[in-house]
């Protein structure tokens, strides 16, 4: 089994940190906070960073199915349980993703802090329960290791799986690297369990690119996390001493208000995510941004938008293009749900062209979902900036720097001569079509 390799040798980390090409990867901090102290960093697999973060968040019930397809998160958590490293926690080695999330409905309603992780096919199998958890206002946190969905069968990365759950009433956060996936986990619990939010949260990480790759990470410290994330104390639980009914049926005279109140929870989550990110930065000294993050966006004429690990590649390309005198920047979406309409509008105010990269497609619209959201944000505003969508990275197709450079080139053409094509697939293989 490919298992945890913790390299705490200072030299190894130092070499990674000092490599000039890696510099931009580590320049994500909004407020130019000090670099992570190298002696605190471990080189771990993304899945391990996730499992470790979950452990530190003190879950009471973990219910997860290890396959469809497999990641090491569930295996790592199993090992923590086997080693007695998570107190007051039951691990259910359940028989399917459908049941995995169903068990958490019961566990969460009984007052437990709950966790699951899944991926592509497993998330699709869960779909009915995904809606149910949010409608019942149960603040479960689930890592979604983003992978393509079948058919054709694929185990590699794209965002079609979590995007397909866009309207289920879950908070959706996307991580750029292993550090961010680790740090988003307690943030997700903090926001989800807020009594004014009470909505479940998906923390999304790119399959293989993050889940199976080893990176230097500062693993969450227990004392700091305890300071950041209070114990879960829900107002309403299944309690034999105070009987309550959960999951009533609603006729047309009351159903609408349940949906409205889910949206109210999302509106409040917009503020709570920002607040939780600020508090995280204060306590841990790491700042990945709030609802969004930006990179060299202030004076950018060409503004790229993306979510997930491709952001790292984009930052490298931006540095290269900037050195060639191209004014290009990045708007990274961390919170896809709730969608940060105001923050996006503000950031896009001065761009000459907006280029949106999507690892998904709404088949039949010929557009990725982030692109659709961005257009919808700008409609009914004075901002009439052209928006061009690029669908790429499907089923794990690599996105090399050259591809990003070409996309920037297309943006330059739009600036010069206006928009000709609104959306296109990138790096298509003509020989297969």
């Amino acid at each position, binding site marked *: 089994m490919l298992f945890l390799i913790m390299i705490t040798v200072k030299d190894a980390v130092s070499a990674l940190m000092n490599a000039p090409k890696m510099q931009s990867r580590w320049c994500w901090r909004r407020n130019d906070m000090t670099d992570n102290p190298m002696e605190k960093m471990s080189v771990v697999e993304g899945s391990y960073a996730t499992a470790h973060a979950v452990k530190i968040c003190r879950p009471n019930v973990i219910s997860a199915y290890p396959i469809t397809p497999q990641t090491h998160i569930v295996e790592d958590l199993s090992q923590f349980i086997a080693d007695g490293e998570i107190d007051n*926690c*039951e691990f259910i080695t359940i028989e399917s993703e*459908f049941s995995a999330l*169903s068990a958490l*409905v*019961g566990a969460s309603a*009984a007052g437990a802090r709950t966790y699951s992780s899944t991926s592509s096919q497993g998330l699709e199998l869960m779909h009915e329960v995904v809606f149910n958890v949010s409608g019942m206002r149960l603040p479960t946190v689930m890592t979604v290791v983003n992978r393509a969905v079948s058919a054709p069968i694929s185990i590699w990365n794209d965002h079609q799986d979590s995007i397909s759950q866009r309207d289920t009433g879950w908070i959706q956060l996307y991580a750029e690297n292993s550090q961010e996936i680790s740090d988003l986990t307690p943030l997700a619990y903090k926001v989800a369990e807020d009594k004014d939010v009470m909505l479940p949260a998906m923390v999304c990480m790119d399959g293989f690119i993050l889940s199976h790759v080893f990176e230097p990470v500062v693993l969450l410290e227990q004392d700091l996390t305890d300071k950041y994330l209070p114990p879960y104390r829900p107002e309403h639980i*299944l309690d034999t001493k105070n009987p309550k009914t959960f999951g009533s049926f609603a006729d047309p005279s009351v159903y609408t208000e349940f949906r409205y109140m889910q949206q109210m929870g999302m509106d409040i989550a917009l503020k709570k995510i920002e607040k939780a990110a600020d508090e995280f930065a204060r306590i841990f000294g790491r700042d990945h941004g709030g609802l969004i993050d930006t990179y060299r966006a202030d004076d950018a004429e060409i503004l790229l938008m993306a979510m997930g690990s491709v952001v790292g590649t984009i930052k490298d390309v931006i540095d290269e293009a900037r050195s060639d005198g191209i004014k290009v920047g990045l708007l990274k979406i961390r919170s896809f749900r709730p969608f940060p309409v105001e923050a996006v509008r503000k950031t896009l105010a001065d761009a000459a062209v907006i280029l949106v990269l999507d690892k998904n497609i709404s088949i039949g619209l010929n557009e990725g979902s982030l692109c659709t959201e961005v257009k919808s944000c700008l409609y009914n505003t004075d901002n009439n900036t052209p928006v061009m969508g690029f669908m790429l990275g499907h089923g794990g197709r690599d996105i090399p720097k050259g591809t990003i450079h070409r996309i920037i080139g297309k943006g330059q053409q739009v600036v010069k001569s206006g928009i000709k094509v609104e959306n296109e697939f990138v790096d298509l293989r003509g020989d297969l079509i």
Partner: protein
Amino acid sequence: MSRLAPGHRGCPGCCDAMAANFVLEAAGDDIIVVSPTGCLEVMTTPYPESAWEVPWIHSLFENTASVAAGIESALKALGRKGNTKIIGLAGDGATMDIGTLGLSGAFERGHDITYVCIDNEAYMNTGVQRSGGTPYDASTTTSPVGKESFGNRTQKKNMPAIMAAHGAPYVTTTSISYPKDMMRKVKKAVDIEGPCYIHAHAPCSTGWRFESSRTVEIGKLAVETALWPLYEIEYSEITGVKKIKNKKPVEEYLKAQGRFKHLFTKEGGEKEIVKIQEIADWNVKHYGLE
């Protein structure tokens, strides 16, 4: 005091309400009940009302056992388990068809839950569609009588045998027409640590088409004709059987219900009744009912 408050919206003579009352009466206050989507859920919990005097949760149609397993795990993790029993109360469709995966998983893992299947032999809440619990030749809206059909072409799935195959400490059949038998078995189940399965036969006047005053009588006929044998299984071994003193011919059960009416009016019906008698005879022999 009844733990299922009066004023719920069950039909007159409703088998679900009787079953729920017997379970609650036998199991006491220290329970949490899980129900799937279905008659019981709809008639007891129209928001903002609830007939449940014990903690109760409904999530979806097919996940009763998984939700129950999650509650049990949570109570253990939080140090609140004590003697609290998690009880699943689900219909035949939610148990024998769409919910089998989660039920099997929960029993295989050995959660401390009691699962009661209230078997009224079809999807009654949605208009009497056949389920895996529908008996041979019963006419339902998806197994209707027709020129070339005598109704449902398959026998009831032997769900208790499937549950017993999990090696559960206690699996039993009962009938809502035998309240003492049912309550004794529920009490026994909740006192056992580990997954227990109770399969309760439950005549539905709406779906089976009989007078609503005859619910109990019809259930008794099923037992007395040996079409619904009452037995107990502990760790895969049969340990108790309710003997039938004066076994009745299956016609007496069949002719009392509209869903079997065609067996007495349609050409070839007699041959079908012979086949149903063979099912009863097999039960007598297999379970040692006489």
